[in-house]
């Protein structure tokens, strides 16, 4: 089996907030697994809102962006508010270039 790229998902619960931190390179090689892992974390939680922290994502392209949108939709389907924690960096830049920054809410 070929290694499918490098990324990590860390899930931390603080009060009513589920914080899901993504790190690594978000592209076609990790897209499906990323969405599956976040869906799983969302499915199991009784938290009221989700923070998707992408501060340490080192690369993202349209496949990674699509994965973030699917995470947003998965949270919405469970009635959870999802916000992005996104300081200046690759994710912020791509959201601006793609013109889709308004498609997300922010921490």
């Amino acid at each position, binding site marked *: 089996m*070929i290694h499918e790229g490098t990324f990590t998902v860390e899930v931390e619960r603080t009060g009513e907030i589920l914080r899901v931190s993504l790190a690594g390179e978000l592209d*076609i*090689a990790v897209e499906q697994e990323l969405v599956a892992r976040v869906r799983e974390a969302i499915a199991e939680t009784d938290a009221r809102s989700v923070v998707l922290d992408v501060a340490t994502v080192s*690369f993202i*392209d*349209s496949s990674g962006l699509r994965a973030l949108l699917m995470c947003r939709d998965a949270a919405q389907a469970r009635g959870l508010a999802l916000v992005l924690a996104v300081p200046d960096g690759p994710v912020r830049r791509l959201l601006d270039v793609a013109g889709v920054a308004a498609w997300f809410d922010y921490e």
Partner: protein
Amino acid sequence: MSESETESFRLRLSLPSHPVSVAAARSLVRALPRTPDELLGEIEIIVSELVTNAIRHGSLNVEDLIELELEATPTVVRGCVRDHGAPFSIPDAPPIDGEDGGFGLFISRKLADSLTIGRSGTGNEVWFTATPRAS
């Protein structure tokens, strides 16, 4: 001007039609000499999108390799991605929330100075040029 400041530097890579090829293609971008970091970052995204596009829409035959070519000159970086897939075009309109597809080429077109698609034999050739932003 010395010779090293005027010559161009070419890199080529043949990639299998597999998702891990996208990271390998980005590694080739990072190997371009004398290219500012910010421009390298933009070219990484363009190349990532074009190779991903070739994998998603290209031939399923694993022997049909995706070819990546990069050329850095002192003033511009040119690149080309060749595949064996069906014809496609660059979307004019920005992507719409809830609709799939079209993102990658839209983003590439915004980052590149030029982006052109042509047919070659049984596949597509996508050419781009990228230069540092005037600041």
